[in-house]
């Protein structure tokens, strides 16, 4: 009985799938979809996914409801393992960062980024070098010189181990030929507070992670890891805006650009029609005022990538990161 009903179901599915095959993009979710977040509740990826969810709800972009589930165990491994297990399911959308390809380098996992179905990259989060408000370090060069004089004496905090922050610190060390002591915390927020308390000398937080501390005169940004300063905008503090912060390269810290993409994937083997549907949906989300407001407020750079462009970006980023991982001896496979 069971076998038969399953066979009947399969037949029905192929039938319904083949009927609208003439127009590929007509796939539409017919039951509640799940946004799988590869961070804990309250983390950066969580805010990303929930902002998208809020924009979808406000503009009625989806005919079905959205459930957000947090699967942030193992720095996000949990979410990808879950997505990997949902092979071919177009109703599970995975939200992440570059951890989609850095995690498989650092720990043994059962997925590679090539297995996942890329949907969209919606923004790039910027990185800055922060020091305490009353720190003696005025520029990136000061910090580098201090580390050169006494290797290991400058302590830089960041979120997690072998994740974006530590990778950036490794990049700085290699580029400037110095050695810092890296202290891993549970998240960027914690690294920000630890800097404000003077327990570390610097951190590499994203703008949104430390904007509160900057406005409250606890910490200040030294430079931004970007080819050009951030675009002009409103003043953040009494005297300065994000655009007033110089690039790190101009301060003698030869890391031209470093940033973290906000990525969206479908499980491996998801149908092309579903991939097209989601790409189109998120493109429309990226045009909503809610999304623009979020990107501006968190000082990220809005840039929508999909399809081959996204694949090329992943390939390039993966190659660059792997180089550092290999050099630092962080690879597990």
């Amino acid at each position, binding site marked *: 009985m069971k076998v038969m009903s399953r066979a009947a179901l399969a037949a029905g599915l192929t039938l319904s799938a083949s009927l609208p095959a003439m127009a590929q993009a007509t796939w539409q979710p017919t039951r509640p979809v799940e946004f799988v977040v590869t961070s804990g509740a309250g983390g950066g990826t969580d805010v990303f996914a929930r902002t998208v969810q809020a924009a979808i709800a406000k503009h009625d972009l989806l005919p079905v409801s959205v459930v957000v589930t947090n*699967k942030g165990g193992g720095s996000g491994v949990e979410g990808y393992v879950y997505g990997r297990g949902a092979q071919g399911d177009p109703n599970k959308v995975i939200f992440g960062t570059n951890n989609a390809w850095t995690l498989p380098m650092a720990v043994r996992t059962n997925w590679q980024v090539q297995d996942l179905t890329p949907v969209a990259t919606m923004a790039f989060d910027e990185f800055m070098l922060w020091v305490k408000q009353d720190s003696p370090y005025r520029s990136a060069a000061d910090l580098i010189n201090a580390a050169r004089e006494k290797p290991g004496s400058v302590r830089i905090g960041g979120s997690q181990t072998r994740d974006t922050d530590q990778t950036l610190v490794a990049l700085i060390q290699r580029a400037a030929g110095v050695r810092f002591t890296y202290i891993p915390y549970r998240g960027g927020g914690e690294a920000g507070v630890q800097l404000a308390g003077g327990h570390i000398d610097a951190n590499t937080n994203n703008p*949104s992670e430390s904007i509160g501390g900057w406005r409250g005169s*606890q910490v200040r940004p030294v430079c931004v890891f970007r080819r050009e300063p951030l675009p002009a905008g409103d003043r953040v503090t009494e005297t300065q805006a994000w655009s007033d912060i110089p690039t790190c390269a101009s301060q003698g810290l030869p890391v031209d650009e470093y940033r973290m993409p906000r990525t969206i994937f479908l499980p491996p083997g998801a149908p092309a029609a579903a991939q097209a549907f989601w790409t189109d949906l998120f493109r429309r989300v990226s045009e909503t005022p809610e999304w623009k407001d979020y990107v501006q407020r968190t000082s990220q750079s809005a840039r929508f990538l999909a399809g081959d462009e996204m694949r090329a970006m992943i390939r390039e980023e993966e190659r660059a990161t792997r180089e550092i991982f290999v050099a630092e001896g962080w690879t597990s496979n």
Partner: protein
Amino acid sequence: MLSNLDSLMHGFSVALTAYHIMLIVGGVLLGILVGVLPGLGAPNGVTLLLPLTFTMDPVSAIILLTSLYWGALFGGSTTSILFNIPGEPSSVATTFDGYPLARQGRATEALTYAFLSAGFGALVGIIVITLLSTAVASFALRFGPPEYFAVYLLAFSSFIAFGGGTPLKTIIALALGFGFGMMGTDTVSGAMRLTFDVPDLIRGISFLVVVIGLFGLGELLLTIEEGPEFKGANGRIDPREILRTAARMPRYWAAMLRGSAVGVWMGITPGGPTAASFMSYGIARRVSRNGANFGKGEPEGVIAPETADHSAGTAAMLPMLSLGIPGSATSAVMLGGLMIWGLNPGPMLFVEQHDFVWGMIASMYLGNVIGVVLALATVPLFAAMLSVSFAIIGPIIVTVCLVGAYTVANAGFDLWLAVLFGVMGYMMKKLDYPLAPMVLAMVIGDKAEDAFRQSMLLSNGSVTILWSNWLVGTLTSIALLFLLWPVVAMLLGRRRASRAAMAAARQGEAV
């Protein structure tokens, strides 16, 4: 300080609208519900409600979410007392005396003690926030990794050292707890530990699942073995009992003040409500005149952890808003909410978002008062559940436990874990191994480990960093003193005993 009172008055003008009162009542009721159901705790409840708040004004949104949190803190004590199943991690310590009280047919009394002392603790926490907001925030900034470690060590040693039980069995239970706590990803090295390549173990073992198994299912197995009757069944339910208990509350003023002090301290130094309740229980057992009764159904054993739990829960809102430090899993979710509503936690929040901050603080007063009243109103209802025959309530408890274990991470694997820990809890109780040290080790073990290893990174491997300034030095020294207390007490006791024996011998000679 006076300007803070002005701000508070302004806050009340924001919070005291019909819409906000409705949100508070609704939030508290929902909170009590999610608090009562184990597994579906405050963090899950707040996460579920978060999408609803996207379209709200930030101050209304935070009022709704914090009210739910207060409700959940109240509700979490209910099942701890009635069925030995902690609804929230922070109400584990409430089971130690709350459940024995319920088994003696004094469930109404125990629930009333719990809710009233919780309300008291919450008020103390809010008053501290109101009066000292600026000073407290800058104090919290002094806490780096060594200070964190010292706080955890202090919480740990004040609970362990003042406990009873066979030392060897306590140590075994502790070691098991540390072992379970370290499963999953290690923050400092990034490596997977004790996961045995099982994908489900990557996220580690959830403390909630363990507690549901050890306490809920384990207790159930014991009940079945001892005869399928619930001893609380003969407890008469008399609403007037609530008032009589309330009249007895002032007698325990010392326990309430002590619990609140511990709670406020742990809420500001981010030790968190769970560690606070354990620490408060441990200290109360040591200091109280009724210390010997602890664990057998002593009201003070309910009051101490409950006041600490709630004062820590409310006091932790301050570092959350002013610094962005999440004191608990729930406030981590709220922090995410803050970002989505377009607010940045930080010192400027108090300056720029006057309506938001003070409206929320004012709503905390209202929410907790409403919370106590609503929670007390549920007492007769919940106490009546004990008189239902075990043949009905037993299966319901199993269902609730398993549903709860599943809800924690929506994972089927956790059901097996819960059952496994249920069997383990049963065996540990049979063999007289204490459960509490194991649970405590799981709660603060991995945080303490992170803090210790971060400290060692900072100091290049020198332990002297734990005495590098007066704050951390004092904390570490007190913690070590507490930890070594049993040894000191034993030595003192032996000397006293030998002196007494000598005296007795001399007396004998004299006769």
